[in-house]
């Protein structure tokens, strides 16, 4: 019998929005977030550090009937390419899986919720500037 109860965690081994975050800290945040939302956290799956490849996300697609949803550490773990990102999000949402993003405290439950994330991606991409304080 397959246990469907609970949410899978999703952590990354490559930088997230430019910062390397130890997986133990990503898991800590996900666990704490799940507790605050009163949802059951199951084991996390780790995304490999392959560029533009999403082996772990694809595994979750195949295991779709074994969990209620996914708790990502951050929205910036999602594919950078907008079209690919939306394909993944739509896939899980059409299967009635709720998607949580712990760092940003964002929840996607319906297709129309995707816009919340897309706005943030768009602003983030269009307001980048690298500089250091000079004294």
């Amino acid at each position: 019998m397959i246990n469907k109860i609970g949410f899978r965690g999703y952590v990354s081994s490559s930088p997230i929005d430019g910062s390397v975050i130890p997986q133990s800290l990503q898991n800590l945040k996900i666990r704490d977030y799940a507790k605050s939302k009163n949802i059951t956290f199951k084991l996390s799956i780790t995304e490999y550090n392959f560029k533009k490849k999403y082996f772990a996300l694809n595994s979750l697609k195949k295991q779709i009937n074994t969990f209620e949803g996914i708790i990502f550490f951050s929205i910036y773990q999602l594919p950078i390419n907008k079209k690919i990102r939306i394909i993944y999000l739509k896939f899980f949402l059409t299967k009635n899986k709720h998607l949580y993003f712990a760092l940003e405290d964002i929840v996607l439950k319906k297709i129309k919720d995707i816009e919340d994330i897309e706005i943030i991606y768009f602003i983030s991409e269009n307001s980048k500037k690298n500089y250091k304080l000079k004294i």
Partner: protein
Amino acid sequence: MKFNNKIENKIQNKFLKNGYYIFDIKKKKKLNYIKKEVTKYTLEWLQKKKIKVKLNSKILDNVHKFVQISELNDLRIYIYNKINQKKYFQKLYYELGKEYINIICGNELAMQKKCNLSIQLPKDNSSLLPLHSDVWSGDSEFELVFWLPLVDVYRTKSMFILSPKENEKYFKKIKKLNSIDEVYNKVKKKLKWLKLDYGQGLLFTQNLMHGNIENKESSTRFSFNCRFKAIFSPYRDKKIGSFFNPITIKPITIIGMNYNFLDDK
């Protein structure tokens, strides 16, 4: 500024000259509601600790009579969590300063997700924010702070700020100094202590050195602070999504965001 009206010009010029702007809050009912909520949570916390207090309008000013310094952070976090969990709070807070935030910062905005609460008891040096500029620790230089006292503030019960002119002068000297105490001693005679009555709000740029010292007055300060920025201005460590939330996205931004050029992959 070219297309401003006289009032906008006056506000903007004052802000550029001083680095801050103090205004009277017009939506007094909304402000009173926030104060009432904070008072309610304070009383709730005191009740949990089995501390009996007679309800009066000066409860926040007098909270030091009931709270030990060692328990202050517990109270602060209790109120902070309670009020920030309320869906209406962020909107209410923005509305109190909206008119002036729009003039100084813009009207397509990102807002800090959770408003910070500061409680400064008399003679308490455990929760001070010594002289600093938030830009030194990862905030964007494009952020505007909306500081909202829930009690009258003056002298050491308030906060200080350095003028843009003095800030520029002393910031250059920082490389010759080695600690914040040394910086503070250099600038302390130049600091401006801000006086605000309950019912007034303060907008300031956190690029300027500012902070507080031990509250040497006889009553407690309760104040909120929250950051706003033009949505497409550069972000630093405080990111959109985790720290900031878009609050006033305009339709043309949504349309532009979803436009696909022919050569888009």
